[in-house]
């Protein structure tokens, strides 16, 4: 008999996957950089002049300086804080909404299902970019609006997946057994079904995180995102005018910072799916 649980199995499978391990390491690294920056331990003096204007990368200034003589590296770090906070906030908003609505719809069916299906069909009918720019425009520019906009768009996919999965599970024997020994609806749903579909939350969050980061960069580039603080998007916006004068390091810094975290989430998303959902392997 195989005593290993799904999570244990998944853990062993992940542990054998070197690329996935490196990706997890990168994700943690970014989280700590964001956290330390948020606590003011690093890059808190990003707005101070550290040298002449537009210095090329050197040993003193690893990523050079911007037009005001500020360190590009410190700006990249502040940008990391913004990007990671947006990803986390989007997940924190999307997971409760997506899981609860999806679970209720899949489990109870009837008018609840009709309503939830209508709700996510409606939300997924408006193209994401239109919804994102509309919400940030209306709520006012700033990081808070970006959180709300990304939260409002990223629960949809999760809700649909959870609903479908709960729908499959609710007729299974283990749920019937739980009912036979007197378990109520809430017990069946939250104690028995949800733990069995929770891997979807993890896989989906890993995918959503990179969408959130990409969206934040585009919104910030459009001037709708974080104000008065550097973000990867505003750095790329600056680079638009600098590139002609041969100043490439802001673009390179922001793009590289974004590249590694997106790559890590891309690889991790695939690895998590293979590890947690063997049926879907390779899909």
């Amino acid at each position: 008999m195989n005593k290993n649980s799904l999570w244990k199995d998944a853990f062993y499978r992940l542990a054998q996957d070197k690329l996935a391990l490196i990706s997890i390491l990168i994700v943690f690294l970014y989280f700590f950089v964001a956290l330390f920056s948020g606590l003011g331990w690093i890059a808190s003096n990003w707005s101070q002049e550290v040298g002449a204007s537009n210095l090329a990368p050197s040993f003193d200034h690893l990523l050079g300086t911007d037009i005001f003589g500020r360190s590009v590296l410190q700006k990249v770090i502040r940008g990391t804080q913004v990007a990671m906070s947006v990803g986390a906030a989007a997940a924190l908003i999307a997971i409760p909404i997506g899981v609860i609505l999806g679970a209720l719809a899949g489990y109870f069916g009837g008018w609840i299902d009709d309503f939830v299906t209508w709700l996510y069909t409606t939300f997924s009918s408006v193209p994401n970019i239109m919804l994102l720019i509309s919400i940030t425009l209306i709520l006012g520019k700033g990081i808070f609006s970006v959180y709300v906009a990304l939260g409002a768009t990223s629960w949809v996919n999760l809700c649909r997946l959870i609903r479908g999965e709960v729908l499959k599970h609710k007729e299974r024997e283990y749920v019937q057994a739980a009912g036979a020994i007197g378990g109520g609806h809430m017990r069946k749903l939250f104690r028995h079904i949800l733990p069995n579909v929770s891997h979807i939350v993890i896989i989906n969050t890993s995918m959503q995180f990179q969408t959130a980061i990409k969206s934040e960069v585009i919104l910030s580039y459009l001037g709708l995102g974080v104000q008065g603080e550097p973000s990867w998007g505003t750095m790329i916006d600056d680079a638009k005018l600098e590139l002609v004068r041969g100043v490439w390091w802001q673009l390179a810094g922001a793009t590289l910072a974004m590249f590694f975290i997106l790559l890590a989430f891309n690889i991790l998303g695939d690895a998590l799916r293979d590890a947690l959902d063997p049926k879907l392997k390779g899909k």
Partner: protein
Amino acid sequence: MTKYIIRRLLYMIPVLLGVSLIIFVLFNLVSGDPTAVLLGKNATARQMADLREQLGLNKSLWLQYLDVVKSAFTFDFGHSWATKQEISKMILQGAYPSLCLSVPAFVISTVLSLFISLFVAYYRGKGIDLFIRVLCIAGMSISALAYILFFQWFFAFKLGWFEISGFDPEFPHFISYVALPAIIWIVLSIGPDVRFFRTVILDEIYQDYVRTARSKGLSEFTILLRHVLRNALIPIITYVVIQIPSLILGALLLENFFSIPGLGGMTLNALNASDFPVMKAMAILSSVGYILFGLLSDILYTIADPRIKFN
């Protein structure tokens, strides 16, 4: 089948009402008084009241919602606040440049991705397969903005192979303007496309009928083109069809960077000018497109795969 289509068409109504509700809540309920923004700091209370009347903002909320719903069915979006032009005319004008860019880019990138994914499926598990997969994932991890900036700077500014920005509606001339944004579009979409197509094709390759075909002595090449591709086309077609409405919106960022006077650029201008009617119109129009093509893609799916029942 007809019954299924009719039912799906009828289901469009509550979804359109819902989309109108989202847009109404955002632009009419949450947004606050737009007249202060439109008239500037020196506006008198009298001017603001007049403008509110003129824009129909004095109507009851219920009537304002009905206006949004009406525009979703009639495509009559009223006038722009910024340019005072009729929005439906602006959309018709902007559609042409957008389509000049998006249609060729979309067709080329889809066909190219299909070829590449067939190629990697043929060499599955070999070095070239791995190489292209790594390239796809790496390519997808670079910001779209970085591609646009770099390509525009390198190919248009540095090498001077293409126009840096602008547009010319005449047939052979517009190519020099849309070529570079189209190339960027293709580079941007090949990564996700190849990844998806490859997965779909590989799903089919391990099916029993492929083993049968192989044991009949068919060559791997014939199997791939005659058997595997035909079955893999079902999910591929739906994947492609569902993307068509985004062509209407064009590529927001590409049009913005290359000053192409299309619908994407129009939307971003409206965004900068807080031109609510144009934003609303584009949100409604693109949603209607999504709903219609979503329906079309479902119908194609059921036609292509008779095993799917209509319920």
